[in-house]
Structures are given as structure tokens and as C-alpha cells.
């Protein structure tokens, strides 16, 4: 019985967490709060913070699920985080791989790397994202893949923080090749990375095993 309740809480938590991350990542394209915009016309301004609140609520649900059935919640969370974070890295890398020049232009806007390293970084980084994203999902090398993804998160956060600090007014370029337009998107990307770095760090401390082995008795 406890396992069933734990599973329900984890499912609810996953949906809420997914909604929260989408709300933070794509505030213009995705916002379930649009359904409430008729009642609260100014609600769109708080999309990011609604996303953060959703992630916090999802964390609470996961904590309750953990207390109900620790073993099940651990397996469930490991599976969900590996699929979610790995899938997100694969999704995020695709447009960068298909247009190296566009991504190199975006990297150059950060003015963070030495000029001569921009192109090679724009070639190597997306390939590392997609390969370690796949490795996190499909190989048993969970610790190594999660550690590399953790390092990539640190690199993104340092670059984003530096761009914000220097008031460069650029987009994150995490999921689309957009120009140097909207500073607020860099803030939201930094918040999203701060939220996702926790589960990634947790994954680095788990034993190496494949996703299907998690559920094998």
C-alpha cells in the first residue's frame, strides 16, 4: 500500500516538476498559467517564480514519497532523473549539432572564451552533451556520465553568471539559436540550472548500474 502511495506521489511530483522546468525554460512558448490569465492578467510576469514554486512543491512530494517507501522512491527518482536530465541534454544538443556556425556565433556573444577557441568549443560541447545524455540513459556508467553533465552544468552556470554580471544582454542559447536579445532568459536559464544541478550531483554518488537493472530484484 505504501509503495502505491509512493508511486502516486512520485508520478504527481514528476508532472509538477516537468511543468515547472518548462515554465522556467520556455516562459513565452509554454505556460499552463495562461489558462488563468483571464482572471489574473498580470500572472505572466511571474512565470519563472511559478515554475520555481512548482519545482519546490514537486520536491516536497518526492520527500513524502521517500518517507513512505524509501527503496521504491530511490529507484523511481534515479530512473526519472536519468531519463529527464539525459533526455534534456539530448534535446538541447540537437540544434547545436545541426548548426555549428549558429552555435559558435552564440558562444562568441558570451565573450568568455579566447577568440580562437570559440569554434572548437562550439563543435565539441554539443557532441559531449548528446553522448553523455545518451550514456546516462542507456549505459550503466551512471556515475561518470552524471559527473560530466555536472561539470557541464557548472560551465553553463559560470558562463551565464558572467554574462549577467557584465550585462551583456544575451540569451542562454540552451534550446534554440537566438540572437543577443533578451537578458531575462539568461536569468531563467541560471535558475533552471541551479535547480537541476542538485539531482545531477545526487546521481554522481549512486552506484553504476543500467536503468533496467535498477528494477531487477
Amino acid at each position, binding site marked *: 500500500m505504501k509503495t502505491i502511495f509512493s508511486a502516486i506521489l512520485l508520478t504527481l511530483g514528476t508532472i509538477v516538476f516537468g511543468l515547472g522546468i518548462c515554465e522556467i525554460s520556455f516562459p513565452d512558448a509554454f505556460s499552463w498559467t495562461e489558462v488563468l490569465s483571464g482572471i489574473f492578467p498580470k500572472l505572466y510576469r511571474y512565470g519563472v517564480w511559478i515554475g520555481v514554486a512548482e519545482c519546490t512543491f514537486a520536491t516536497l512530494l518526492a520527500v513524502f514519497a521517500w518517507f513512505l517507501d524509501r527503496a521504491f522512491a530511490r529507484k523511481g527518482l534515479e530512473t526519472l532523473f536519468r531519463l529527464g536530465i539525459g533526455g534534456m541534454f539530448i534535446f538541447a544538443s540537437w540544434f547545436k549539432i545541426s*548548426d555549428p556556425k549558429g552555435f559558435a*556565433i552564440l558562444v562568441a556573444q558570451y565573450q568568455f572564451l*579566447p577568440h580562437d577557441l570559440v569554434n572548437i568549443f562550439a*563543435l565539441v560541447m554539443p*557532441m*559531449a552533451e548528446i553522448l553523455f545524455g545518451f550514456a546516462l540513459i542507456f549505459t550503466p556508467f551512471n556515475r*561518470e556520465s552524471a559527473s*560530466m553533465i555536472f561539470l557541464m552544468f557548472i560551465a553553463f552556470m559560470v558562463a551565464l553568471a558572467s554574462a549577467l554580471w557584465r550585462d551583456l544582454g544575451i540569451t542562454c542559447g540552451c534550446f534554440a539559436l537566438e540572437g*543577443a*536579445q533578451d537578458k531575462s532568459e539568461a536569468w531563467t536559464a541560471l535558475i533552471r540550472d541551479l535547480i537541476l544541478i542538485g539531482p545531477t550531483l545526487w546521481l554522481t554518488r549512486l552506484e553504476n548500474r543500467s536503468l533496467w537493472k535498477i528494477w531487477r530484484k
Partner: protein
Amino acid sequence: MSKIFSHILSQYSWKFLAVMSALVLILSIANNLIQPQDRKVAWIGGQEVLAKPAPEGAE
């Protein structure tokens, strides 16, 4: 501190990381080679920094 660090490092499969690094390099090179001319980048070099957009309300 260094003991903890070396303990963490000893838990990694360095063979896996080496294979993945080699794959990343090979596929990065191959990806640039198969791209159409307008999407290719020079191996060593960078891109222009674009002009910052004017703030809202500025003429």
C-alpha cells in the same frame, strides 16, 4: 580533503571516459565535415561579437 578527492576519482571508470572523449572528438570533427558550407566553422577561430540591441524606448 585530497584523500576524499582521490577516493572519488578512483571510483570512476577512466576507460569509459577515455572512450567517450575519443568519440566526442571524432564525431565533432565528422559533424563539421558533413555540414553544408554555410554551417561549417574553421577549426581554429571564432565569430564576431554582434552589436548589443538598443534598450527599449531608445531611438
